[in-house]
């Protein structure tokens, strides 16, 4: 496990991210959630058609943007994603790096991501995914702990 400090409405706390292997280590721990919003744009992209049917392709994307936590803290995000596109939508996997104002980072994997193409409207479609924490180290980057 690794920790980082987060400022909340009631002060600064040191939270422990549960990587899944720590279940039962401390039975008095409590689960909490943190919500954040991210706006991002594509900084690098490469599309390679598979060649079997039209619209079937693999796309590598690097997205970068800003994030805002529910407590008002600001930060940045970077995502490295591989998309498998078909005419009706996209499946994706990848990695997400959240960097907070104090330079601490959270690295997560994106799994089972889905993106559906909307037939009309401003947006190309909704997307959803789940993830798993890979590393979360206070003030450090590049380390890995599981």
């Amino acid at each position, binding site marked *: 496990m690794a920790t980082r400090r987060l400022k909340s409405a009631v002060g600064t706390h040191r939270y*422990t991210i*549960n990587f899944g292997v720590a279940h039962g280590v401390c039975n008095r721990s409590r689960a909490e*959630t943190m919500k954040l919003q991210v706006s991002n744009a594509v900084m690098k992209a490469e599309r390679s058609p598979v060649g079997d049917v039209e619209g079937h392709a693999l796309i590598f994307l690097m997205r970068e943007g800003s994030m805002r936590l529910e407590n008002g803290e600001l930060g940045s995000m970077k995502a490295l994603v591989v998309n498998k596109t078909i005419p009706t939508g996209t499946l994706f996997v990848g990695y997400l790096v959240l960097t907070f104002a104090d330079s601490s980072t959270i690295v997560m994997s994106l799994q089972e991501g889905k993106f559906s193409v909307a037939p009309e409207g401003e947006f*190309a479609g909704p*997307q959803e995914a789940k993830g798993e924490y890979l590393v979360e180290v206070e003030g450090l980057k590049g380390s890995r702990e599981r």
Partner: protein
Amino acid sequence: MSMTGKVRKPASGEIAGTAENDFILTYTVPPK
């Protein structure tokens, strides 16, 4: 962690559009 979001249609010449995402991170807080 769970993520939802919307992706804008890419502009002409772009491979993918900008995105707006909402994340919910779940973690445990150790006892004081």
